[in-house]
């Protein structure tokens, strides 16, 4: 089965997830939630991967961390990858670990030469340890850091060129960041290296309660917004048939409701496939 549109897996949807008949359906899990010695979580993961393609999405490697990677955490990720045999492994262009502790978030960097060398070194180390290519996700931005030597699409392209990694492009992150920092999301998408894109994320966002729509939050607690669907269309036009994942982490609706939203993404991919076939003949 070729993975088309997938859903971020929620344990409360386990029964429906493994029984869902949709063609191309796949699931993604946050790797750190399954780095446990045993118990029902791992049993659920085993059952899920037996039925559907699985992607592991890490949130804790701290690939942009100046202090380098935590070898212990990388080894745990390697064990999980070996166990789950995912068709994709992804992480973030972000950092979370500093001075021996970890902040549970994906924190930003100034895109400097030093940051580029740091990220490429860490990604090289991760890919070598895992023995496979990983995808790197573009972060969400809430503050206009200064001192960048690269625009983000060029920075991501340079990392992909240097390390051979792929890119996971989160179009909701692009929309939220464009709103918060004041750039054109379509220009951003057009500047991305389409050859490197291996996965796309879509999700919902909401305005900050204090600052309103001037500051959007990548909250993953609402349906995908109309402008994000339009960005997805534009990105699929450029990147072609790339697996798309619907993320939902808050106000999680019934599985059927998520499937309706996921089916819309599958339809976008189906149209792109038709165009690709027509173009080929």
């Amino acid at each position: 089965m070729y993975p088309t549109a997938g859903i971020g897996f929620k344990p409360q949807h386990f029964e429906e997830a493994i029984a869902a008949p949709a063609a191309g359906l796949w699931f993604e899990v946050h790797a750190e939630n399954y780095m446990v010695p045993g118990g029902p979580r791992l049993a659920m993961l085993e059952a899920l991967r037996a039925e559907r393609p699985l992607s592991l999405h890490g949130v804790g490697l701290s690939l942009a961390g100046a202090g380098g990677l935590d070898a212990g955490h990388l080894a745990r990720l390697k064990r999980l990858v070996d166990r789950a045999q995912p068709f994709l492994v992804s992480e973030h262009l972000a950092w979370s670990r500093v001075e021996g502790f970890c902040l549970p978030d994906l924190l930003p960097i100034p895109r400097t030469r030093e940051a580029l060398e740091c990220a490429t070194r860490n990604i090289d180390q991760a890919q070598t340890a895992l023995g496979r290519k990983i995808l790197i996700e573009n972060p969400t931005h809430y503050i206009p850091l200064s001192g960048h030597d690269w625009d983000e699409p060029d920075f991501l392209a340079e990392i992909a060129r240097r390390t051979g990694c792929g890119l996971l492009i989160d179009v909701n992150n692009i929309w939220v960041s464009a709103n918060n920092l004041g750039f054109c999301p379509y220009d951003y998408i057009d500047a991305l290296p389409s050859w490197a894109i291996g996965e796309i994320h879509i999700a919902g966002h909401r305005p900050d309660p204090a600052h309103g729509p001037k500051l959007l939050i990548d909250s993953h607690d609402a349906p995908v917004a109309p402008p994000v669907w339009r960005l997805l269309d534009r990105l699929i036009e450029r990147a072609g048939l790339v697996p798309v994942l619907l993320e939902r982490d808050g106000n999680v609706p019934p599985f059927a409701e998520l499937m309706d939203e996921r089916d819309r993404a599958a339809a976008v991919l189906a149209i792109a496939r038709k165009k690709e076939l027509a173009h080929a003949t």
Partner: protein
Amino acid sequence: MRPELAAFQQSFAAAILSGTPSRFDRWPGFAVYRNTSMVAAIDSLAASYSATRAILGDADFRELARAYFRDNPPATPVLAEYGAGFADWLEQRLPTDRQPNVADVARIDRMQTETHLAEEPDDACGIDAAAISEDAWMTVVAVLQPAARFRWFATPAPSVWLASRNFATPNEFAAARTEEGILLTRPRGAVEALLIARAEHQLLMRLQRGESVGQAAIAAACACPRADIGASFKRLLESHAIHHFQRKEHQP
């Protein structure tokens, strides 16, 4: 090359952990980073320490969790492991006259997480208990389930914890000041809890140390002369705390 990235990340992290305004706060969006880290850590503690939260109330719990996060940010991105020291921290933090059981309840919450996430037992099936003759128990050891956790408390925290698990309201948590023990197991994928007597705790402790079943029974009988050790042992068997029996290895 300017080694500025590490300095930037140190100051950014310090600003997130600090409760006071930093140079990053000139941007309204910085609060998003501060809140996301804080809320993720607090939610993780709230999920792991549900009985403790029920006793303290959500607002007080979150206030304490916020302070704990600032003092003890996670050492690993695996948040299931976060908060291993929360009970000890609470014991230092809470006034002794307030909720004397709270730190012990937090310890049981932690035991529950450990039981829930413990590794699976190996495939060893050991020897059939029914085939062990009475005098052979001195040479047989019991291997406990990896998920089994037990502890004896100087407070009635086990009863309080169980009451919380049964959704008792906070004013029902007042219990007699007695010592109690608790055993947590995971027989069918879900955590089960059992109040245990002193003799049962003695047995578990000694079995875990690798003493033979016979030696453990004699020691438990000496420590608790009025206890029915046979009945205690049967109760442990029924609790699924014991994975299998095996012959004790000869020690030169």
